């Protein structure tokens, strides 16, 4: 089992390395000069002052040294927390911007992922044993699985916001408010949080429930279940074991789906103008701010890696085989 962990850790380290390298490489492979774009904002520059400014900015952004040195500096910057300066929010540090946006993204993502996963699994397991529930959960699940993220992020706010006026449909909090920790602000936060949360939650729910339903049915047909039935075990006990067995592939599926879920979250944030990382990415694209874009990319890669690691740990604690063999290797 030490082998299992070592392999996982090597994968994580390599993935981080690949992520950083891609992140560094893409802007350098791409056409266009960010400093020229930046200087085009200034008016009335003659060629001498243009050259001087160009030199100044190239030095400030570290673009005046050979490529390999830029690459090493990039790594150094990542470990020392120096992720560059945003061009769009002139002078603001990339890390500051990212850390400002992150709480909003996490507040959407974590509850939506956890709730849809837990409820979806319960729903799917329930559907596997009741015909009437199966006949409603299954078709509904297929439809929810088939809905494109951006469409749900338009239809839900249209109905609940623009037609019935139940919830606000844009921004992280009321735009007339100043962020302070008082009750008006917090209730405004929750009010604005609900719809984006609902769409991310709904779109994942169908997938988990259908997956769980299929797995539980498969497990109930399994030889181990048949054997227990032959021994005269209570049907409830058999189902509980089936559910446990079925949650293992669901759990590794969760790890695999993280990248896709985060992508969907970005779409949702853009559709709702929700001030999280997704929205920040959008600002970075429209303003051609590649330091910011790079910073967010690394941040998301690290986030996915950490989440994967957490799921690995949960997996070890849930799966008796991995757990026992780990104890076995130490004793």
């Amino acid at each position, binding site marked *: 089992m030490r082998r299992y962990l070592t392999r996982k850790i090597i994968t994580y380290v390599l993935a981080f390395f690949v992520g950083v390298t891609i992140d560094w490489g893409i802007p350098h492979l791409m056409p266009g000069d960010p400093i020229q774009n930046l200087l085009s904002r200034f008016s009335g520059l003659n060629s001498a002052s243009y050259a001087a400014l160009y030199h100044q900015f190239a030095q400030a952004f570290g673009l005046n040294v050979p490529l390999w040195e830029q690459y090493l500096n990039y790594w150094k910057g990542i470990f020392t927390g120096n992720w560059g300066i945003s061009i769009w929010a002139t002078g603001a540090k990339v890390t500051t911007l990212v850390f400002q946006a992150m709480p909003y993204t996490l507040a959407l993502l974590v509850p939506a992922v956890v709730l849809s996963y837990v409820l979806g699994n319960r729903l799917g397991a329930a559907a596997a044993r009741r015909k009437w529930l199966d006949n409603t959960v299954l078709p509904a699940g297929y439809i929810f*699985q088939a809905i494109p993220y951006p469409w749900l992020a338009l239809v839900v706010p249209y109905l609940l916001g623009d037609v019935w006026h139940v919830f606000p449909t844009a921004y992280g909090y009321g735009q007339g408010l100043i962020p302070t920790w008082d009750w008006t602000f917090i209730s405004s936060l929750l009010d604005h949080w609900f719809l984006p949360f609902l769409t991310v939650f709904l779109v994942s729910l169908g*997938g988990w429930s259908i997956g769980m339903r299929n797995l539980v049915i498969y497990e109930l047909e399994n030889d181990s279940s048949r054997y227990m039935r032959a021994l005269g075990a209570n049907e409830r006990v058999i189902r509980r074991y089936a559910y446990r067995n079925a949650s293992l592939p669901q759990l590794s599926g969760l790890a695999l789906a993280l990248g896709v879920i985060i992508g969907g979250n970005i*779409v949702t944030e853009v559709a709702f103008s929700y001030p999280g990382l997704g929205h920040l990415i959008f600002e970075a694209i429209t303003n051609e701010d590649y330091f910011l874009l790079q910073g967010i990319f690394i941040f998301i890669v690290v986030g996915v890696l950490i989440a994967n690691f957490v799921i690995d740990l949960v997996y070890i604690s849930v799966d008796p085989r991995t757990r026992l063999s780990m104890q076995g290797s130490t004793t």
Partner: protein
Amino acid sequence: MSESVSEVPQAPDTPGAVPGALATPVAPVAGVPIGAGGGGRARRQSDFLYYGLRNKKLIIGITVELLLLLLAIIGPIIAKYPDQAYTGFPTQHPGSKFWFGTTDAGQDVFSQVVNGLRESYLVGLIGAVSAAVIGMTLGFIAGWRGGILDEVLQMLTNIIVMMPALVLIIVIGSYLSHPNLLFEGVFIGLTTWPWVARAVRAQTFTLRSREFVDLAKLSGKRPVSIIVKEIAPNMASYLFLVVVLLFGSSMLLAASYDFLGVGPTNQVSLGWIMQQASNEAALQLHYWWWFIPPGALLTAMVAALLVANVGLDEVFNPKLREQ
């Protein structure tokens, strides 16, 4: 694209899930129909036809899919206006003149939607085919050779899965001035092949130790021909299901990319229509006919694909048929 995952309950490291919300068929490895001889194959095909024509899910799914395909093919021909043309009648409700109404600039929504539908089919096809080609090649190699090569390829697969594809296409797309449909499709293929590779690798692993493969080895066949002639046919049905699901998830992914504006710039797509509607405040102004049809059609298309897929699974897999 949500994600769901239902896969072969086996070793934790070899799940066969497909991204983008789509449930993979529950295809127990041991349940792969192993038809060894040529005579058995012909009988199996007529069996598939027999059960296929009697499977309601398959018939319904394929019918809806064919109708939508027909709409994507003849829609742009019967549309009265080109997709970007200004008709001079802004924000018309749906009616006999404009079937799906018009945008605030007076463009025909019906024409845009059917053209977008055609684009979705193309992107889905390119994405699924390129993912299948890369995934099958690497999956066969990893499963057949095993050893160090397998370790390396698995590592690569795990790393690609962890890269956030949407952010990556945004980073790449923001530097390309005019990404086209082919770029989008191939990019989707390049980021989704791990799902195929995992499935193919796991199946190859169990098949390569079967007697008929040993026999082929003894008779001096070369590895490529063993893989193509002996191993691939035995997982053909399973592979087909995986590719069908990838087709659906590619279309959903493309809709998200287009919505964010990193998709093709020279072409109408369903995601682009939704983006335009959102940008022009169609929600606040209650122009529902502008953003409801593109998403509803795409939902119908992918849902029909999922239902047909379940039907196909039942046809291919005798174990599921009995239920």
